């Protein structure tokens, strides 16, 4: 039981980074970022390259991952989505562009890193015991960093001028422009921040589970599940979704063999959406 709680908390914290990122992007740009898992994957592989190949400290790797994935995100916004949005075309076109980007990033990673699962040694050694449960020190560190980052993001969007503008933009683009906010710049920053969060999540998780070039689709799917549970574009919803998925996974893996857990999660999710199409905290859709 304790083990399930510990595992659930660790998973939830990491997932929260992913969910916050994708919901930020959805809220601001109204784009479902199909490439989110690929951004996660690139974050992990950059850390692998910096620390296992080049040999620099892990911290440098994480910083490099954050920065590079954030830049990729900003480039995606500028080069692809801002253009599609400007033409006010179909919402689906932006979605499909994200699919194309996912494909591109995945293949770039395959070309550069191959198919192999890449991992790096844990940052810290040792295992703690909490009652009947085990808590590896490395996972504890990852957990603490994730929680700290989630709090930092919450503080940023709630208490800074730019963060406020991002929230405003997600709620009413026109009214935000009327406040004198440069919507283009804030969109780019928001997309960059959302991407960077995915990158950090990957950078942290590579020391726990490892990352390979093909992991993107699975991560994106998890990200979608989380925002569907919580409601797309709502920050509190993303955190709720992360908690729900993290604990559902932890409980499921403790009770059922392998893939049954996700089968149950998907079926439960579909049933849930039929009852509550807009998620727990979401805005009504359409």
């Amino acid at each position, binding site marked *: 039981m304790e083990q399930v709680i510990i595992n659930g908390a660790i998973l939830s914290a990491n997932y929260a980074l992913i969910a916050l990122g994708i919901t930020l992007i959805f809220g601001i740009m109204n784009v479902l970022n199909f490439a989110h898992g690929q951004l996660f994957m690139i974050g992990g592989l950059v850390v692998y390259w910096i620390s296992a190949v080049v040999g620099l400290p892990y911290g440098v790797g994480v910083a490099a991952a954050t920065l590079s994935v954030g830049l990729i995100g900003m480039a995606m916004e500028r080069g692809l989505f801002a253009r599609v949005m400007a033409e006010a075309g179909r919402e689906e076109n932006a979605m499909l562009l994200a699919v194309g980007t996912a494909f591109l990033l995945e293949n770039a990673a395959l070309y550069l890193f191959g198919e192999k699962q890449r991992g790096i040694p844990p940052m810290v050694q040792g295992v703690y015991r909490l009652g009947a449960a085990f808590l590896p020190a490395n996972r504890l560190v990852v957990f603490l960093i994730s929680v700290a980052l989630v709090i930092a993001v919450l503080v940023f969007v709630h208490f800074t001028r730019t963060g406020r*503008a991002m929230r405003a933009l997600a709620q009413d683009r026109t009214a935000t422009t009327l406040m004198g906010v440069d919507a283009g710049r804030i969109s780019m920053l928001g997309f960059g921040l959302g991407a960077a969060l995915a990158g950090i999540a990957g950078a942290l998780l590579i020391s726990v589970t490892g990352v390979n070039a093909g992991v993107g689709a699975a991560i994106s799917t998890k990200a979608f599940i989380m925002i569907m549970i919580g409601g797309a574009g*709502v920050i509190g919803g993303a955190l709720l979704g992360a908690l729900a998925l993290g604990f559902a996974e932890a409980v499921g893996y403790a009770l059922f063999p392998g893939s049954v857990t996700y089968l149950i999660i998907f079926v439960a999710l579909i049933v849930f959406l039929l009852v509550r199409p807009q998620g727990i905290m979401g805005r009504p859709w359409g």
Partner: protein
Amino acid sequence: MAATSSRYFEARRIGVSYDRVTALSEVSIAFDAGGIVALIGANGAGKSTFLRATSGLVALAGGEIWFDGQRLDRIPAAARVAMGIAMVPEGRRVFPLMSVRDNLLMGAHVRRDRGVARDLDVMLDRFPRLRERLRQAAGTLSGGEQEMLVIARALMSRPRLLLLDEPSLGLAPIVVRDIARLIVEIRRDAGTSIVLVEQNSRMALRISQYAYVLETGRIGLEGASQDLLNEERVRELYLGG
């Protein structure tokens, strides 16, 4: 056309089209600093479009807009706020999920000076209802409170020109009276120039000095508000005389 304007605000023969539909054509409006100008007319006459063109939400199809000696119509919407133009859009567009406080702070987005915290306090003194609800999500306020909030939010940018789009829309008469009083006070206290678009033409004509009547994208009538208030044609337009 002159390369500048001697008036504080001047729209010269401006036109606006949505897709292929003409919303405004050859509209000229000019006024000097420190007054209230009313724009009245039927639904779809182009009143809101005029405000949207002035604030930069829609591009001009023709004509020029000058404000305080500067050509306005080529400046992006966001930058116009920094120049001192604030617009309160139709339908009380608060940021519904943000707190009242955050809504007000959004209004001061363009300001970098230290006076923001003090202005917030001043604003809350002026609107005690908003102080009571400072941490509440703006979407939960009543219609009248939301109208107060969006006007206060616009004032947070310390505008020199305030554009108000139908502030009385759907509000109880008593609240309309409060709003009207507030608009008069804003002009009196801060010397802010105000363009007021209204369906409630009597209220608009009462508190403004000069007024334009828009009819399907053109100016049908203009004059001192006092005169229009007694004008038979205006009465007719709104009561089916």
